[in-house]
């Protein structure tokens, strides 16, 4: 990909935006990072809180293996260095959502070192990529939640989230436009969901972005950055960057200076503002948590992590293109969400089985049908693939009917509509509605012969060179067959007879 040409046109000239993202991704685990309480979303306040999470005197942390396993698998998925020796540090500060008075995190020796993610900005051309560096992934505790609007003079503290495992995925400042940042977050989310290490539910806070933005004259040194905290959708990330970059340009062009500070994004106005409550005390006094020992991983553990990794989105996309012959666009669409890819692969297997063909032979058909027929229909119904009444098995049956020539493409559309309504099997619908098409060569020949005989004049004209009449013969034959003639067979027979 060519260098981004995204520029902010200031009064004094062009400005380039430099973006780095710290993504906090909630690790998929049953229990918390250092305690046995549950992590499920939406529970009663303070019901998923242990004595450990509430930082009662004398409580101690014990590390959850699954959280480490998921972070390691994530690191492997971005081809990062996995540190067999890491350790946990305390980040000390006072806040009501932080019962211990420190967050157990990893500063000095993170679990995962450098890796990278490829992003693509153009759907139509997924090969046109840019590599975004990942500096590190470390594992840390989430904080609790404060509620400010339930009492006139008090804030309420709910510690259900307190101690839930997070991966903090820190990118390099490699992004240069809101679109690149958006693509990065989307791609990261895709990878996490493939790996199964984070559910990626941004609206439930399972993925939050701290957005670091600075501006500079193209080619010059990095400017002072601000960090906008906890932005929780791809769109908001892009909005926050755009607003923040423009704000910085305004400040700089009017002779001001950018203050390195923490800011908040307001989704209703799409703007950022300085965060009062975290202004002071950037002195976190990190030091190794003396309640814990260094984390040492052995080869067997790492081997299991690697072996349990699924095929990842880029690899899958390439395989769809190279082995299944799908277009780059289709391959990109089908691999963007792990659920879609899984659904597609089941559809493909069912179709091949039902049609008695190799998957590669029916892949294009299946891909096209899924993308242009089923997605469209589900969209209209306002439902998703997961809730689709047409399962991959039922879809495979339908596609096999097309592949075998039992029904035509247009009949298949009709069948799909009925399937979505009634949930019936394709075969049943085809029988009942009489949608089977005629592929028997003898029967079609007989109809063709009749059409040609009845239009001898047109046959003459055709043979004299008026080739456009071919469509007329097809139409007449299909009409005679009430639309049920297999168009391919009709074509072939007509071609032969008119030759």
């Amino acid at each position, binding site marked *: 990909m060519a260098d981004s040409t995204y520029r902010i046109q200031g009064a004094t000239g062009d400005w380039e935006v430099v973006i780095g993202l710290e993504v906090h991704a909630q690790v998929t*685990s*049953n*229990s918390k990072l250092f*305690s*046995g*309480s*549950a992590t499920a979303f939406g529970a*009663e*306040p*303070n*019901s*998923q*809180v*242990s*004595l*450990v*999470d*509430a930082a*009662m005197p004398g*409580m101690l942390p*014990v*590390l*959850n*293996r*699954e*959280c*480490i396993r998921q972070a390691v698998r994530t690191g492997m998925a971005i081809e990062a260095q996995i540190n067999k020796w890491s*350790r946990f540090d305390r980040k000390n500060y*006072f806040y*009501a959502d932080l019962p211990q008075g420190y967050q157990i995190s990893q500063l000095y020796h993170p679990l995962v070192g450098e890796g990278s993610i490829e992003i693509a900005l153009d759907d139509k051309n997924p090969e046109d990529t840019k590599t975004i560096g990942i500096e590190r992934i470390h594992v840390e505790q989430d904080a609790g939640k*404060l*509620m*400010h609007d*339930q*009492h*006139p*003079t*008090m*804030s*309420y*503290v*709910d*510690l259900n989230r307190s101690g839930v495992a997070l991966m903090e995925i820190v990118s390099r400042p490699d992004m240069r436009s809101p679109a690149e940042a958006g693509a990065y977050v989307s791609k990261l989310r895709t990878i996490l969901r493939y790996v199964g290490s984070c559910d990626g539910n941004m609206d439930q806070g399972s993925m939050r972005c701290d957005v670091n933005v600075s501006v500079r004259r193209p080619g010059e040194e990095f400017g002072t950055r601000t960090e906008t905290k906890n932005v929780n959708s791809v769109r908001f990330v892009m909005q926050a960057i755009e607003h923040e970059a423009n704000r910085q340009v305004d400040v700089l062009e009017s002779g001001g200076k950018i203050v390195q500070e923490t800011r*908040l994004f307001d989704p209703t106005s799409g703007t950022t503002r300085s*965060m*009062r*409550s975290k202004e*002071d*005390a950037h*002195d976190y*006094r990190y030091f*190794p948590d003396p309640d*814990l*020992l*260094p*984390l*040492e991983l052995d080869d067997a553990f790492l081997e299991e992590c690697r072996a349990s990794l699924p095929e990842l989105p880029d690899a899958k996309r390439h395989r769809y293109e190279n082995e299944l012959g799908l277009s780059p666009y289709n391959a990109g669409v089908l691999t963007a969400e792990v659920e879609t890819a899984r659904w597609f692969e089941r559809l493909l297997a069912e179709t091949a089985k039902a049609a008695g063909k190799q998957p590669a032979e029916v892949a294009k058909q299946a891909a096209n049908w899924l993308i242009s027929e089923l997605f469209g229909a589900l969209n209209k119904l306002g439902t998703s693939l997961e809730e689709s009444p047409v399962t991959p098995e039922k879809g495979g049956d339908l596609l096999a009917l097309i592949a075998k020539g039992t029904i035509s493409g247009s009949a298949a559309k009709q069948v799909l509509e009925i399937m979505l309504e009634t949930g019936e099997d394709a075969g049943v619908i085809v029988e009942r509605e009489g949608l089977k098409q005629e592929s028997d060569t003898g029967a079609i020949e007989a109809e063709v012969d009749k059409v040609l005989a009845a239009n001898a004049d047109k046959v003459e004209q055709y043979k004299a060179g008026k080739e456009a009449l071919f469509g007329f013969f097809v139409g007449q034959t299909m009409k005679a067959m009430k639309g049920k003639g297999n168009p391919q067979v009709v074509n072939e027979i007509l071609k032969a007879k008119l030759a």
Partner: protein
Amino acid sequence: MSVDTATVAKIASLARIKVSEQELEAMVPELNGILAWVEQLGEVDVTGVEPMTAVIPNKLRLRDDVIDADPLTGGNRRDAVLANAPAAEHGFFGVPKVIE
């Protein structure tokens, strides 16, 4: 390195301990005495020495990912968690209103 009143005030603020002017004045020489004494550590040649990580050779154990496996470290005990709270309200801990 010795500390002055402003530094002690800053440390006290970091540690969230309110101190009066008078207390500050008394603390400065005390802390300086202690700091001057611990600074003799600077004499020790520590070239090539790793900082201590585990005092007794021991490896970090990893726990199975099971919810509430031990009631002492599991959740589902809101009453116990809130039992000693100075201001528990509607199942929450109450604190003076925070403006973010």
